[in-house]
């Protein structure tokens, strides 16, 4: 019974994630694209929590849903303010991209299939003190590099956005 509920939760989240991703890829309306991306990111964060990575789910929520999604909304508002009419997102001839994407999916799934049986789902929660000890211990250089990268990105965004002012 517990496994049935667990599988049901996993597949429900998977359906939401795939539906959101399909909306992102196929819609012509920018607001629908944003809503689809939001649904996809929320489902992804919920899947992280489902696998027992609660801190990662929170980070996904804060960084993507609270940061990147709002950033995309602001970019859409800034960019489409001066254009005429309702903004629409065009798509190229889809057959060649569909062929490439299908081939990639088949290749990746075939490559990973032998290890499929070793992937389990529900485990005990991870201890946050352990993660903090790693981030401030052996992973400290990577942690610092990530912080420096964010700082550089911030400076680049300020320079690119404000560079045209006279």
């Amino acid at each position, binding site marked *: 019974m517990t496994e049935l509920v667990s599988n049901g939760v996993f597949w429900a989240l*998977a359906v939401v994630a795939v539906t959101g991703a399909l909306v992102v890829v196929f819609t012509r309306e920018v607001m629908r694209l944003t809503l689809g991306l939001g649904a996809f990111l929320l489902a992804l964060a919920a899947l992280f929590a489902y696998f027992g990575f609660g801190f990662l789910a929170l980070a996904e929520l804060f960084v993507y849903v609270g940061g990147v999604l709002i950033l995309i909304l602001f970019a859409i508002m800034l960019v489409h303010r001066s254009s005429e009419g309702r903004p629409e997102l*065009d798509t*190229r001839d889809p057959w060649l991209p569909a062929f490439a994407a299908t081939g990639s999916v088949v290749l990746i799934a075939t490559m990973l299939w032998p290890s499929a049986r070793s992937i389990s789902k529900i485990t005990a929660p991870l201890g946050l003190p352990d993660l903090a000890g790693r981030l401030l211990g052996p992973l400290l250089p990577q942690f610092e590099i990530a912080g420096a990268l964010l700082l550089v990105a911030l400076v680049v965004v300020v320079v690119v956005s404000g560079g045209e002012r006279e």
Partner: protein
Amino acid sequence: MSLIVLSSLLFGIGLFGVLARRDIVAILASVEVMLGGPLLLLVGLGSTARAAGDPSGPLQAVHVEGIALLVIVVAAAEAAVGLALLVSVAKQTRSTALEDMTEVRG
């Protein structure tokens, strides 16, 4: 098994969006979808490593969480810089279509 199907499907959908869309906003959103698939697989593998409980194994749950955090940070930086470039270029071209951005100036 279902995790591999889901993650590769998400990667494929994102790849299709990157190749098929003309608008930069849609391409950036598709890149985020592409990143989501492998990240989900990484988290699933971390869940397996935690279930195995082998502290000397090559892949531990803490490593997975650290790697995933770094991926999220890099993706956030990429999205911020990409959107700033988009706003800057779109002010000049008055369009977000990729075909309209043909001029490269130093």
